[in-house]
């Protein structure tokens, strides 16, 4: 009996130490990755990053990539937010228990982790190829196409958060408004979405954080550009794309620039997810 007891205690102690070790391993890799990004990124920070374009190569900066990233992300989130919020509203308010609603909710969850590179190829097929044919090759890759690709990646995030947040709004609110004779569209737009506002904003911020680091779909849509481009119909550079390009370059100076870009992207993404967390915790609604 005591031998069995001893064995069980030893098994337990070993298993518990292993679980602690697993946690330490996870945290160690997080620390390692963040530490390298900070160290190499801060080491490469320089004023010229923000004043010069990538056309200068080693002596250049990343200004056009940063501007490009902002424009493409803005297009992406600008397209995905209204569509995503409306679609999420339909799922939560109009189709909550219907079969079509359930299927779309289910497929949306799948889309949430669908491979982003396929989304890039999809947008390449529906926007880059037709625009090349229609303009006889004068407009091929474009910042707009990149924005659409990112919108497709942001969309399921926003749909899901909106859907979940609206379903958390107490039904008494709906009943109170309906009993006063408010039509349902007015109830949805003016009361429910307002009540779930902070949750929806969190979803949009999370989606923005998700797309700001996306690289794969931009390679065949926005492509890249060594000069400043403001016109969304032009080829456009973006930070992830330039990081990819510079990291594959053999030169050390290019690697330093890539690290600087990586640092900027990581900080941006981490600040966004921090901000969304703060908004959520201040409003005390649960969300996964």
């Amino acid at each position: 009996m005591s031998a069995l007891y001893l064995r069980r205690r030893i098994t337990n102690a070993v298993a518990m130490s292993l679980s602690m070790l697993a946690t330490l391993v996870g945290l160690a890799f997080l620390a390692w990755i963040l530490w390298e990004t900070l160290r190499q990124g801060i080491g490469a920070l320089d004023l010229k990053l923000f004043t010069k374009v990538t056309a200068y190569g080693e002596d250049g900066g990343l200004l056009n990539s940063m501007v490009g990233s902002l424009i493409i992300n803005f297009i992406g989130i600008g397209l995905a937010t209204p569509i995503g919020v409306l679609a999420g509203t339909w799922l939560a308010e109009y189709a909550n228990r219907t079969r079509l609603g359930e299927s779309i909710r289910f497929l949306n969850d799948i889309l949430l982790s669908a491979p982003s590179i396929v989304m890039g190829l999809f947008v390449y097929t529906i926007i880059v190829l037709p625009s090349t044919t229609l303009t006889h090759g004068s407009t091929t890759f474009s910042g707009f196409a990149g924005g659409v690709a990112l919108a497709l990646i942001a969309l399921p995030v926003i749909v899901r958060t909106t859907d979940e947040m609206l379903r958390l709004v107490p039904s008494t609110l709906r009943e109170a408004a309906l009993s006063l004779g408010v039509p349902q569209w007015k109830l949805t737009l003016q009361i429910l979405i307002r009540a779930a506002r902070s949750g929806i904003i969190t979803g949009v911020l999370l989606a923005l954080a998700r797309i700001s680091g996306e690289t794969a779909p931009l390679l065949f849509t926005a492509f890249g550009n060594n000069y400043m481009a403001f016109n969304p119909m032009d080829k456009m550079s973006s930070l992830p794309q330039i990081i990819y390009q510079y990291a594959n370059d053999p030169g050390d100076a290019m690697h330093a620039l890539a690290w600087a870009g990586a640092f900027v992207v990581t900080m941006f993404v981490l600040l966004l997810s921090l901000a969304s967390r703060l908004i959520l915790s201040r409003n005390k609604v649960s969300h996964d």
Partner: protein
Amino acid sequence: MPATETAISATDILEQRSRRDARHERLFRWLLKGCALLVLASLLGAAGATLWGGRDAFSAFGWHFLVSSEWDPGNEVYGALVPVYGTVVTSFIALLIAVPISFGIAVYLSEVAPTWLRTPIASAIELLAGIPSIIYGMWGLFVFAPFFADHIKPWLTSNLGNKPDDGKLSWVAEHVPFVGKLFGSDYPFGASILVAGIVLAIMVIPFISSVMREVFQTVPTRLKESAYALGSSTWEVSWDIVLPYTRSAVIGGIFLGLGRALGETMAVTFVLGNAMHLSASLLDPGASIASTIANQFSEAVGLQKSALMALAFLLFVVTFIVLLIARLMLRRLASKEGR
């Protein structure tokens, strides 16, 4: 007279308004439904566009496309076996590493850690999920792959591989089948299938562990307390009570991680070495579907472009099926709870 007039106009107004409201309501409903259908459209569109783009490759090679390991742009011959093999093996290695670690993290966070420590550690692990994949790729390329080549790879090749530097085969390489081949390599760099698997593992750990932790918390306390009252240890409660109760959702979480790993592009492209030939060794470079597309698509023309599209279609279908299984498994626990 004026009294009835106002009465008529009042009902008129009321009727007009309710008619207007009904019209707006219909418009609004259609608008919302249209937006929701866009979600469906993007899913179908992605599958359709890649299938359409890959039609030339599919019709040129037929089933041979799936089983041929030849990828020769010079002779216009393309087979998917090398990238498919790379995708499957790197994802498998990733799960092999990530599942036990994620389980450990989830057990630690839900059963072992002091309460005040749980939320900060959980948020830190979730921070890993927020880091863009290109950062993993850079870290893998510039930090981890060299580290691996300097410190881990020499040990693996000389103790397990069939091509050790000093020519002496180790006991394991001689007596255990396959191991020698798996770890034998004379390729000098770090970038390899194994490194890609490890980087992928780090990427999917936060996804799997957060699903596991979440479902572990749904286990009714009375179940766990009964087991503790009968004298079970923490490990026995985790393994014999919590895990069986949440089994389907845990499998769902693992499949979710698998779906991520299969479709991951950037982290893998950097550390896989991008060699379009088949090698039994995990320490040799390889290619995955996503890395092949990322590397070749912008310069590809004609049949090569079509072959890449066909690869994308394969990837999309496989991840779709994996994620479908994941969601169905996850849903099973939710329905058990009556949600």
